[in-house]
């Protein structure tokens, strides 16, 4: 598309022959262009620099500086812009014509001049010039736009990093690989401590690329951090994340994700995978690794009513690691179009000797397979660690404590329909946080509360036998039964009483947890030696260790624990 304005060109005519110059000027002017004239090459170059004509008609043989040299200099001065140079020549020899082309000439016009041919050539060259100008303009536009976009991404990433890094990704037991622009590939990796000292970790992969893939990350991270910090477990967090994404994302967008809860104290890992490729539980003792298969629809697809928050629970002890990855690893294609595939990945996992190098080894294998490295995949590996080596950072409270309640009691009863879906622990913990004296022990309090609650639910209300958890197979069965029984629960209750009394400068909390189950022989269970290497029985030991006093009554149906605190400094 040439506008009428750009049809009128400034044309430089360089010819030492004065009558030829006059004639050509007249012809070009008649075609509606403005004309500049030079009588040798040096003059032409000088005029070009000063006046920037859009097209040059150049005689080859001229005194002072010939047309070839002048053409070379003008092309250099023009840079990226196309300034067509048409050589005026009566040269007929191939070698001479080649010299014109070598010097940067774009076309020839032979003497004697033919007006029609000359006009056609000028127009054709101008079309090329305009095309080049358009291309350059678009290139500059794209470059500007690209810079703008990069800057936007940088800002968005900086804001997002503030949120993402508020977690505990830097913990020593976590290794991960993420592109600096993972956010804009739709990849998301988050980790945070729960109040009980469990580590929650999320690897997500939103559909699409660029901004659309990044917008869901912020709300997802908010839910993840908020609910983890408040002590919610995976099912509640998952339900909330799913509901939020379902509400805000367009129908065709969703987030493939795997969520882990690593319980280092009880040596368990709880897993939910919806749409990510198989992750792996890698065992330190050489047992074959356990695949963590996607058993669910990705987040943001299903309505709250159909969403499946069932998790899998596996033993997770010293030497064990969980390895998760976004797609892009197994679906990498090699030069012959073949997929990298799960088998190649498993070979890398099996042959890995130094856990610290696992992620690098996967990368190398991938680079070897494709013939080039990929920077758009995310991988994360979390290792078991002794709980006291990490521990969540203590929470800092900013209020003064003057209005702290000191003498009260409260009683709660949760019945079957509630037990199925509702986790009361975050709410109860929040309530106890109002008592300043307890804040120093909030982590212990949370662990004991959740132990007592899950004992009451699983062994009391649901009647599950903890002996099942003796081995890995029974372990799976146990959690399967738990889900099934909870699903069809119609009656039963858990009652929780809090009693807070002042005691000198400090105070004392008594928690009673009662359930509707059959009870258990607490004397016999507590008399057993601590089962260090067993998968079951850690719960009661923890409760005894962390609370000031604990006892069971009502044939094991009621547990009672105490926490005391001194006056605040």
């Amino acid at each position, binding site marked *: 598309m040439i506008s009428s304005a750009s049809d009128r060109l400034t044309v430089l005519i360089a010819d*030492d*022959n*004065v*009558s*030829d110059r*006059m*004639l050509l000027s*007249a*012809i070009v002017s*008649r075609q509606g262009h403005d004309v500049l004239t030079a009588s040798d090459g040096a003059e032409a170059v000088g005029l070009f620099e000063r006046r920037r004509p859009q097209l040059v008609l150049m*005689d080859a*043989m001229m005194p002072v500086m010939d047309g070839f040299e002048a053409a070379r200099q003008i092309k250099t001065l023009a840079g990226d812009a196309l300034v067509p140079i048409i050589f*005026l020549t*009566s040269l007929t*020899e191939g070698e001479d014509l080649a010299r014109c082309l070598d010097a940067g000439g774009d076309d020839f016009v032979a*003497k*004697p*001049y033919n*007006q029609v041919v000359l006009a056609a050539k000028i127009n054709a060259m101008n079309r090329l010039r305009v095309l080049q100008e358009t291309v350059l303009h678009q290139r500059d536009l794209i470059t500007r736009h690209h810079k703008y976009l990069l800057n936007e991404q940088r800002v968005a990433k900086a804001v997002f990093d503030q949120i993402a890094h508020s977690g505990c990704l830097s913990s020593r037991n976590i290794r991960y690989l993420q592109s600096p622009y993972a956010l804009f590939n739709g990849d998301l990796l988050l980790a945070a401590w729960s109040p009980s000292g469990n580590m929650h970790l999320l690897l997500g992969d939103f559909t699409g690329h660029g901004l659309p893939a990044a917008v869901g990350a912020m709300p997802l991270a908010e839910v993840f951090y908020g609910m983890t910090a408040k002590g919610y477990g995976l099912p509640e967090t998952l339900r909330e994340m799913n509901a939020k994404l379902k509400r805000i994302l367009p129908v065709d967008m969703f987030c493939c994700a795997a969520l882990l809860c690593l319980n280092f104290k009880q040596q368990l890992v709880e897993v939910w995978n919806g749409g990510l490729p198989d992750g792996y539980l890698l065992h330190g003792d050489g047992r074959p690794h356990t695949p963590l298969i996607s058993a669910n629809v990705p987040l943001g697809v299903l309505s709250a009513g159909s969403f499946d928050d069932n998790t899998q629970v596996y033993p997770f002890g010293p030497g064990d690691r969980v390895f998760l990855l976004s797609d892009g690893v197994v679906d990498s294609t090699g030069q012959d179009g073949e997929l990298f595939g799960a088998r190649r990945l498993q070979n890398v996992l099996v042959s890995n000797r130094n856990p610290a190098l696992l992620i690098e080894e996967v990368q190398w294998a991938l680079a070897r397979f494709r013939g080039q490295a990929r920077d758009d995949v995310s991988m994360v590996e979390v290792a078991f660690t002794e709980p006291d080596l990490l521990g969540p950072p203590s929470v800092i409270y900013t209020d003064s404590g003057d209005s702290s309640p000191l003498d009260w009691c409260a009683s709660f009863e949760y019945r079957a329909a509630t037990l199925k879906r509702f986790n009361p622990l975050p709410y109860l913990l929040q309530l106890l946080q109002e008592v300043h004296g307890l804040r120093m022990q909030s982590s212990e309090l949370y662990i004991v509360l959740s132990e007592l609650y899950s004992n009451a639910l699983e062994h009391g209300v649901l009647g599950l036998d903890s002996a099942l958890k003796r081995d890995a197979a029974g372990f799976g069965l146990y959690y399967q039964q738990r889900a099934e029984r909870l699903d069809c629960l119609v009656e039963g209750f858990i009652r929780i009483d809090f009693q807070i009394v002042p005691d000198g400068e400090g105070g004392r909390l008594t928690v009673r947890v009662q359930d509707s189950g059959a009870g258990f022989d607490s004397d016999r269970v507590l008399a057993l030696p601590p089962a260090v290497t067993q998968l079951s029985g850690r719960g009661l030991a923890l409760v005894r260790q962390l609370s000031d006093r604990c006892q069971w009554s009502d044939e094991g149906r009621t547990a009672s624990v105490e926490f005391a605190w001194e006056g605040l400094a």
Partner: protein
Amino acid sequence: MSNNPVDFNVLSTLRDVMEAEYPALLQVFISDSVNRVNDMTLLLRDPSFTAASTASLQRLGLMAHSFKGSTGNMGATHLSELCLQLEEQGRGLVAADDARIRRLVSEIKEEFYAVRKIFEDELQLCHASH
């Protein structure tokens, strides 16, 4: 000397293209060409000129080349043709022959006078019509 030193079709095109500038073009061509013809004559008179000298030949070749261009544009077809032959001699495109070169230059001189006569008549006509 040719029968038709100037192609009158070309001349009428030039009249159209140049409009008011037409007499000026003729004038410029005549005075420029007088110089060129003189230059050629002087070059040949130079005692150092010889068909065996590449440098001399090249100078002559360039002169002929340039003159060929302007005469072609002015419709002096035969003159342009003579220039081409001289250029070929000068640029070593054919075996240079001293006698032939001198003959060509004198033919060019003769032909130019014929052309010049015609253009001067044209100029007279232009002035008369104004």
